[in-house]
């Protein structure tokens, strides 16, 4: 230390780290790290494309879904499943991936290490937000490209439709992300965290109209699934990507986009409140 360290120490008392600057740095680091984790990359980033390819292969590329008795007016399986796969991306990126990462970092000491430095908790979450945004954007773009160029799915051309898609994808991911942070307070080990994180994805993807039509579910199951965001995201996305007439297969015979936004907004806010209460910085013992 030098003679000037008295003034330095004085300045140090009032020093504050830049939460935004550090958050952006964390985001860049998280993205770099995520790209290094090849297994997650493939599992999370390409899973919806794999599923779409599977449906395209298994059910063929005939325009058979929703066709009239004369065989006209139908769409291909890939076209039909595209909105569901987009909706699935939001729970994969927003919930499964994020909660696994955060839980791992809770148990391997990363959170403890960072909480021992001047890094603001907000910067840590900005980093996670950056990583999740990167993921959902990459997933969405890859899925749309695959749908368009591998499966010849016709995509909407007006800006309003894309604005709605963008908003739905971001809000759905945000709703799942805040829920994921709150959720990470539950598991007692990293192992149980990654197992537990798969459960909602598995259960909801089969009951939210992602893999088969929502209206085919029994009413009691529908009313349970109605509580969760996935079913609403899928329905609102179908309103954009499916041609007119398909709303007949929705409950009540119509897409309910306003209710979708209401449900997503409620989940995002409730998740944020719970996350604020449940996530400990420093992780307290």
């Amino acid at each position, binding site marked *: 230390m030098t003679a000037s360290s008295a003034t330095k120490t004085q300045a140090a008392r009032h020093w504050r780290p830049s939460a935004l600057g550090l958050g952006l740095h964390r985001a860049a680091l998280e993205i770099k790290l995520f790209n290094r984790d090849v297994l997650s990359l493939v599992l999370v980033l390409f899973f919806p494309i794999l599923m779409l390819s599977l449906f395209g292969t298994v059910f063929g590329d005939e325009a058979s879904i929703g066709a009239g008795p004369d065989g006209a007016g139908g769409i291909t399986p890939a076209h039909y499943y595209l909105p569901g796969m987009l909706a699935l991306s939001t729970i994969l990126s927003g919930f499964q991936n994020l909660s696994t990462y955060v839980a791992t970092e809770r148990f391997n000491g990363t959170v403890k290490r960072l909480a021992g430095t*001047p890094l603001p908790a907000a910067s840590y979450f900005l980093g996670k937000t950056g990583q999740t945004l990167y993921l959902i954007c990459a997933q969405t773009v890859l899925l749309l490209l695959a749908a368009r160029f591998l499966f010849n799915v016709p995509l909407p051309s007006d800006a309003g439709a894309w604005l709605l898609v963008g908003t739905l994808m971001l809000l759905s991911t945000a709703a799942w992300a805040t829920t994921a942070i709150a959720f990470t307070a539950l598991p007692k080990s990293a192992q149980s965290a990654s197992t537990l994180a798969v459960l909602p994805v598995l259960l909801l993807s089969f009951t939210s109209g992602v893999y088969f039509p929502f209206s085919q579910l029994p009413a009691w199951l529908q009313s349970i699934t109605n509580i969760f965001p996935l079913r609403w995201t899928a329905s609102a996305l179908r309103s954009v990507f499916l041609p007119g007439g398909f709303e007949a297969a929705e409950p009540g015979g119509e897409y309910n986009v306003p209710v979708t936004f209401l449900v997503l907004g409620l989940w995002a806010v409730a998740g944020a409140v719970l996350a604020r209460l449940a996530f400990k910085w420093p992780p307290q013992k």
Partner: protein
Amino acid sequence: MNLPSGQRPGGDAITVRNLVKNYRQPAGGTLAAVDRLQLTIRAGETYALLGPNGAGKSTTIEILEGHRRPDGGEVRVLGTNPWKAPPAFRARIGIVLQEASDAGELRVHEALGSLARCFPEPRPVAEVIAAVGLGGKEAARISTLSGGQRRRLDVALGIIGRPEVLFLDEPTTGFDPAARRQFWDLIRTLGSGGTTIVLTTHYLDEAEQLADRIGVINHGRLIAEGAPDQIGGSALRIPRVRWRDSSGFHEQITEHPAALVSEISGGGSRELPELSVIRPSLEDVYLQLIGSVEEAGPPPAEAAGPGATAAEPSREGVRS
């Protein structure tokens, strides 16, 4: 002692009054991991916390770091209560936890560079890597480091922010002997630069080498404190003379070992088998301190010798 001008000379970097930390036990009931602990560590001092496994060292040090919330008492580190302290406080302390397994996928220089950004005046990454002897491993994934290399990285992460107070919880576990020496040099350099250092260790020679003062805790309480060559008081440090003669093995505790040797050897005219003069090492003193708490009976070292007890060792003359 060489104090940085930013700290009040002779001021206290750390004060702990009646610190209590209880843990709930699975069987019900509570365990007082820290039990009305009193501790004062001066600015610029290197202080070693010793104690058996489970004594409460890590609990204490993590409370000082702000990682755990105390259940009672008063804690001040650099004049601040460390629990939920603002970033400006965290910028002034450095932490090396007892165990860390984070950041496995990062490279060494990435982990250090990333952490350095959190601090206002970080040390250069290359300088820190060299200081802990990780040269050549800058680009290695942390998960591929050996145990000792990983530990060195933990030390590097602890000092990257140029802390005024550095906490090290068993920093040298897994170090090879040369690395340990290198670490000692690093700590001495930091100490002479004015850094206040609090470390725990199970290596008594390490405490002896590094510490200005040592505190021994057991069952969450401070049971002895002092400079390495004074802790435990003079009663635990009286030299022993051991020898064998026709009547068997003898051990005598005496403050005048030369006189005793002269006396039993007939002024040096008679050689005695197995003759030795032993000054209790820090380890001997430590074991007696711990032993005298563990079992109320006489400490093992004394019990082995004929005639002498810990309470009232015979200081003069031959009684064999």
